[in-house]
């Protein structure tokens, strides 16, 4: 899925008009200029985690969780600027990790990979559930 479609789908599940969303999202602090520049590229998991986390913070005003539990991700610290984004998306159950040895033996977020469309839609659906519960 491209970055643009990811953002459009996110707008749709949240009932936001996607027109002018790049400027609006940047002003609100949950999108970066790079998201528009790279709108036609396949969205990587680390970029998806950033957008999801910043959307939680800036739009839904959902506070961060403790990220100690995300240390089980062997590649968490491979990304200094997105470690917290990944940890928050993971700890909230929005984005899963790969279990490379089964039974939690080697959990790998695989931050530079991409997910197929069905998985991305499932992530956005889980985000939507948090959005719904945050309104209660």
């Amino acid at each position: 899925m491209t970055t643009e479609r990811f953002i459009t789908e996110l707008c749709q599940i949240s009932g936001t008009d996607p027109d002018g969303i790049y400027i609006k999202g940047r002003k609100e602090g949950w999108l970066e200029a790079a998201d528009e520049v790279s709108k036609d590229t396949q969205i990587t998991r680390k970029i998806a985690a950033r957008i999801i986390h910043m959307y939680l913070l800036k739009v839904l005003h959902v506070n961060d969780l403790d990220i100690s539990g995300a240390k089980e991700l062997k590649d968490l610290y491979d990304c200094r600027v997105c470690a917290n984004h990944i940890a928050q998306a993971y700890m909230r159950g929005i984005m899963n990790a790969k279990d490379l040895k089964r039974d939690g033996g080697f959990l790998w977020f695989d931050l530079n990979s991409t997910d197929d469309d069905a998985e991305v839609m499932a992530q956005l659906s889980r985000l939507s559930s948090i959005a719904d519960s945050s309104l209660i």
Partner: protein
Amino acid sequence: MNLSGPDPIKDNRLRFDHFEDKLFNKTPRLPAMGWNSWNAFGSGNTEELTKAMVFKIKELELDKLGYKYIVLDDGCYHPERIDGHLKADEVKFPSGFKAMADFVHGHNLKFGMYNDIGTRLCSGAEVGIYRHEKTDCEDYIKWAIDFLKVDNCYYMWDNATFADPGNAKYSFAPNIRSIYFAGKTYPAAGYADITGTCASVEYGYIDYVTSIGTFDGTAPEHSPVGSRSSELVFEVEIDEPGEFELVVTYASGKKEGVGGWLQVAVNSDVVFDEMLPDTGSPETFKDSAPIKLRFTEPGFNKLRIMNHRRQENTLLSYSKIRRELEAAGDRDIVFSICEWGKTQPQNWGHKVGDSWRILNDITFQVGSDGNPGTAKWEDDYTTSITSQYNKAVIMDEFSGLDKGWNDPDMLVIGMDGISDTMCRTHMAMWCMLNAPLMLGLDLRRISKGDALYNIISNKDLIALDQDPLGIQAKRIFTTVCCTRPDKEYIRDNKRTDVLVKPLANGDIAIGFFNLDQESQSNDISMDIDMLISALGGKIINKDAFLNAGNFRIKDLLAGEESESSDRSFGSGILNPCDCKVLRITPLP
């Protein structure tokens, strides 16, 4: 863009053997103080927020205490170059960087920016300084910056963050099985000397030496003290000076510990410095093409098989920036090296920078507007106050006015997850360690006289950090079993440390730091003779201490002063994560 390999090293002063030599005429300066956007706002910093911080610094009069540098960290640039130039993110910084600099300077503060020695910034913006050093440095001078922090993501010649892990091929020599020299085969394992502690022998079907290179210091596992690099040294005897051929039997790889880049030196002359052809696997050994060596001295010579490129390449990259800043008209810019301790910058940082980070970040949970972020007191990775302290506290030998400063990262005072006591101790630690003091909180959250303000504005502690003598405190005692408290890397936080620091006016400062999250059970007392002995020749006024009849003692956290004729100074019982810092003045 040339990504075919690192540049040749033409200046011997960039070589490992010459790391102690000077490279630039640096201005001696004390650790920088100011505010940096990263811990406070992460990638979400804006012109509006930065201006608000400037107003708060003036309102709180933090500038009068020394906090003068306002530094824009990652996340402020447009994600691509425009006509080859850096440009501000037009939403976050609509007025541009020059206007931002003018605003900061207009308030008698100094303005700092950020870049990266790689192709991209850590945030992913494709504006890293690599191959744009001249253009970017000219722009930085036009924008009138006073401070430049340079990161290490997406670096081409090492397996740095976001870089290709296979870049380790540049950082390590291949596995070495043997060499063939002057008609004789010399096995690597068991015959050659291995210097340092990085390399080791692998015994098996084929014995060989591996990990010839430099430890990665990004994570907290390894001590920064001692030789962090390894070479394989053969002592060879020749009858007459002349040209000889060397054949190396090697197996190459592309991972930490086994690479493909080989350096060969005859005594102190590097005579070969290239990538060897790939052998296919780290266990597939092949012979190199003959390498021609010239020997000028008969008898025993040292033939060094090595790869110091991890350190040399990074130094070369940082030195290009410094050189271009100077060429463009350096306006006394503070140069902050931020390669996270990866290449052991304590060995070479003094040649080019004013400070060098010693580890990966102190927190990965940075704040954003309305969210203070989270920090920790202790953690098994680098992301805690004690993780940074534990490494910095044994690094005093590397710092100084004529060198620069160990940088255990920016302050996390004011973040969630740490108590006021922890913040106070954090501030005291950084001041005793002569660390740069870069505030990392949203200053709008504090007011004069509140707890956070009192911590960051403690003039007595700041005076230790900014003491003109510029000597980092030395750890002279710790409560865990240890024979060399000033050198041993200790990560068990169930302890109290005692640090001592000489000061320019002849006073000394003593710091007692309880790192444990339990109360310390005993008073720790230090005798004045032991303190003098530990400081050796660094103490300014030794005789005054030896002959003192009384001492004036100021508790720098409690703010209380007293006089005593007692020749020992105690910690009292310290609460969890608490500290006591005393300034001692000898009196007749």
